[in-house]
């Protein structure tokens, strides 16, 4: 992966628990120091960020107050088709995975598998874009 191409990449973490957002941001920062990180607690907050700047990756929790993450994925991609959405969820079943996929998510990571899967998934997405 070309590190120069990661400069100015923006990742947005959408989760209503600030401790989870914090952990995810720290993990991304540790592996992709060049990424700029943004946080949102709801889909509405995420959309406000997307309206003002280009966001490359969104990590989207499913259970959110207001609009849930599956519907949120659809709306994010309608407004920002170049963005890659990774759905992050405590649910680890095929129905949630296929709902995320149908909504346009590029990947689905169960929260219990974050330590194993999150960084390789992001790396894979970055590689596919080059």
């Amino acid at each position: 992966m070309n590190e120069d191409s990661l400069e100015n990449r923006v990742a947005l973490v959408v989760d209503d628990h600030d401790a989870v957002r914090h952990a995810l941001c720290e993990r991304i920062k540790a592996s992709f120091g060049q990424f700029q990180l943004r946080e949102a607690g709801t889909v509405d907050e995420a959309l406000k960020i997307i309206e003002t700047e280009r966001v490359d990756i969104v990590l989207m929790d499913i259970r959110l107050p207001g609009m849930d993450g599956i519907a949120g994925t659809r709306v994010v991609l309608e407004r920002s088709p170049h963005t890659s959405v990774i759905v992050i969820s405590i649910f680890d079943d095929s129905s949630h995975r296929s709902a995320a996929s149908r909504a346009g998510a590029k990947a689905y990571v169960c929260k219990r598998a974050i330590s194993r899967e999150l960084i390789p998934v992001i790396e894979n997405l970055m590689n596919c874009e080059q």
Partner: protein
Amino acid sequence: MTIKVLIVDDHGVVAEGLRFVVEAQDDMKVIDCVQDSQEAVRRTLAARPDVVLMDHAMPVLNGTEAAHMIHEHCPETRVIMLSMYSDAVHVLRALQAGATGYVVKRSAAKEVVDAIRAVHRGGRYLSKQLADTVIDQVVNKTAAVDPLDRLSARERQVLQMLAEGHAASDIATALSLSPKTVETYRARMMEKLDIHDFATLVKFAIQNGLTSLE
């Protein structure tokens, strides 16, 4: 003096986030993160942390019951409950169980450092959004009746495990009871709560925060 903190949460990502925040403080140290509240009780008795950050929604033994056990056997350890519930019944239940702090989970990372320092100094801490709820309760004397008060601690624990889908035989083994005693507890609590079928009993457990849908 370094404040020793034990983090108890069955979601690794949440525990990790809290760990980052706590370990960034010069005056605090995380001694362990555990994902099981029964292990949390054992670890507290062994390591005597100054503060325990306890997730309320834990399987098998919920955070309130675990806080009660810690308060009973290790009263010098201060427990801060982390919960998604912000109503007066849950807050008061946690405080009555011996927790000295209550932080709403959504803003746990932002508030947990202040909460740890406050309870370690001997005070209490409530998430700012809860203070009004609890004060209203006291001032208006609208004492919310806690439906769980009708059950004993053991009955609450059996109910939680039943609602989580454990078989009576497994509950018996876990709690060192006979299967017949577990059935007796079930029948007794249904009578106390005036509930006539198992599905309603499970719904009661979820609605009253004994277990969650997660």
